[in-house]
């Protein structure tokens, strides 16, 4: 999921953001060029020693601001992993959590990244959480030789840009959009599809890939955009029904899909509904109730809720934070543990560069999936799975390529 900031700004915040953006647009090139000049000297000096060494693992994501709910999911998962590692006594080093708050916004990303880079004890960064900030921060991490491993920034172009030390620990949106198209094309009686995006970079990217896939498969495609903060989904639902399509793809988040699904239900839509990992959350059913029934949801994640390991993680998380784990909590917990394992594997020879090399070549079996990366830093196994809302639960159907093959 490309957790990009949604546009719902409170009151005049939007205006301030626009002002901020113009300032940062000027500031980033200046800051970046300054960094090129000074980057050579900014390498770590934390390597060496074994016993009692303290390493900091940074997290760059929204810890305040509009998207704090999503950011907290990940921050908590990471802190849990670090706390557990420290308490286990298995390691001869101590770990510390280093928060780098980017508020999920591009404008704050530079400062957040710089704060992590400037602390010589920081040996790896988890994040940036969202794709937009990643675009800004990953080059900085690359110049500092500091590994940044994102468990949630899914924009497919991120790994094409040679950031240097960026690892995408999650299958990208291309895989998901293509999987949606592949699966719909294999369904009987589907000849026309409407693709609705939410105007976010995540939604638009996902929709574009899905539209291309559907057109290649020879289906009739219609497109529409409904901004995620729309006040009324009745009009959009009305359009879908009157267009008479057999299936609908919604590329956006569950928060918006829920009211949309309710309106679609009322408007009498009886075709297939498909959405992506942004909507694959139990909150969808909580919000939409019966209207969520029958929706197909893709996800780069296998069904972790059934596995003992994840259940025990959920219990420990609940005990620590008094709330159940949310979207990408378990994934960021996994990434934190992968980093801890690699630090351990380096046996004291930990510096930023060696840790990045270790991570890039790692194959780590986490609770949610097996993590490994190709040469560009993209997630190695781009496999997408299909789920369906059934009886108030998100039920697991299987891998999309196998389902489509029949």
């Amino acid at each position, binding site marked *: 999921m490309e957790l990009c900031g949604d546009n719902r700004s409170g009151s005049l915040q939007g205006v301030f953001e626009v002002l901020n953006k113009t300032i940062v647009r000027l500031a980033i090139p200046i800051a970046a060029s300054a960094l090129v000049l000074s980057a050579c000297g900014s390498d770590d000096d934390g390597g060496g020693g074994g016993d009692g060494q303290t390493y900091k693992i940074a997290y760059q994501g929204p810890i305040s601001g509009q998207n704090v*709910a999503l950011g907290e999911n990940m921050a908590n998962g990471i802190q849990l992993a670090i706390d557990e590692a420290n308490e286990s006594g298995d390691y001869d080093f101590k770990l510390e959590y280093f928060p780098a708050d980017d508020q999920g916004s591009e404008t704050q990303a530079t400062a957040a990244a710089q704060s992590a880079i400037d602390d010589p004890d920081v040996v790896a960064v988890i994040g940036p959480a969202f794709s937009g900030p990643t675009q800004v921060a990953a080059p900085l991490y690359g110049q500092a030789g500091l590994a940044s491993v994102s468990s949630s920034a899914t924009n497919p172009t991120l790994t094409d840009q040679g950031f240097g030390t960026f690892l995408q620990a999650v299958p990208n949106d291309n895989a998901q959009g293509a999987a949606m198209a592949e699966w719909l094309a294999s369904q009987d009686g589907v000849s026309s599809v409407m693709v609705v995006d939410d105007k976010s970079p995540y939604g638009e990217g996902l929709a574009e890939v899905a539209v291309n896939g559907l057109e290649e498969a020879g289906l009739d495609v219609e497109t529409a955009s409904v901004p995620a903060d*729309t006040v009324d989904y009745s009009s959009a639902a009305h359009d879908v029904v009157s267009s008479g399509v057999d299936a609908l793809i919604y590329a956006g988040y569950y928060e918006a899909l829920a009211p949309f699904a309710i309106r679609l239900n009322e408007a009498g839509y009886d075709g297939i509904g498909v959405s992506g990992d942004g909507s694959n959350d139990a909150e969808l059913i909580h919000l939409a109730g019966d209207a969520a029934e029958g929706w197909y949801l893709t996800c780069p994640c296998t069904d972790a809720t059934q596995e003992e390991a994840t259940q025990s993680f959920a219990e420990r998380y609940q005990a620590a934070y008094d709330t159940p784990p949310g979207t990408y909590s378990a994934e960021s917990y996994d990434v934190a543990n992968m980093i801890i394992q690699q630090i351990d594997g380096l046996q004291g020879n930990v510096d930023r560069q060696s840790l990045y090399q270790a991570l890039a070549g790692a194959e780590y079996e986490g609770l949610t999936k097996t993590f490994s990366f190709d040469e560009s830093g993209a997630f190695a196994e781009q496999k997408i799975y299909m789920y369906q809302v059934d009886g108030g639960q998100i039920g697991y159907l299987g891998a999309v390529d196998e389902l489509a093959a029949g």
Partner: protein
Amino acid sequence: MSVSDIWDVLVLGVVLGSLYAVIAIGYTLVYGVLQLLNFAHSEVFMSGGYGGVIALTLVEPVADPSGLQSFGYVILGICAGALLGGLVAFGLEKAAYLPLRRRNAPRLVFLITAIGASFFLYNLAGKLFGRYPMPMPTMYENRKLFEIFGTSVSVTQLIIVVTALVMLLLVDFVVNRTKLGSGIRAVAQDPEVASLMGVNIDRVVSRTFVLGGLMGGVAGFLFGTNLQVEYTMGFLPGITAFAAAVLGGIGNVRGAMLGGLTLGVVEAFTVELWGDAWRYVGAFAVLILVLMFRPTGILGERVGRTA
């Protein structure tokens, strides 16, 4: 766009517009008596949504409610929304604006306070109720009720329009026919003379806020039934309703109603013709056009001084 489409869109527009109208009343009433653009009104609206959700979650509606039960739930939600909206508006006036009036603060300070109060309230709601949206519990089976000219009208749509209509008639009656109403109009016209005539200005202002808060709270509940309740839900409807109040002539109660309906219908047609991304472009283009030719809004100002 066929004729039946036009009716479809008109129904959607009237439903949305009547919500805007109810919210816009809150802006216009407060502006009338204080010449204050109360930007925190969008958070009064939001708290009404939470009031409805909390009350209904506490009651836990039964799975298959009878008609009478459904009616009870809706009334409960409306009352809870109005109550919390009224309370928040009351507290807002006492905590944020009354001290400023006592000190005779400049107009700009009021405006900044309003923006600050808005930020404070919605972040407080996010902290108290969580930053995830909350669904309105199912109160009734939202089915098609009847058709007008081939356009189906659902239960939710009817509830919204009827409640809004009742609220609007009620507020019109209060402002034009009651003692409080004459107090409001008197303060709006000239606060000094009004107080010389024995009108207790503080009390009138406080009650005006509560009246606007009740309306905003109910609108928040109705909006929640149509969408969902969230701590940021106030912003866009709030801004649009504020624009509606300006469009109709700020300070003018009937103007706010007319402005709300107009914006709702224009939005619905814009969306139908050019898509959802253009929603506010159409609506606000109309606002700008009207203000170019009638700077005081469609109905102009009937209560209050010029801004």
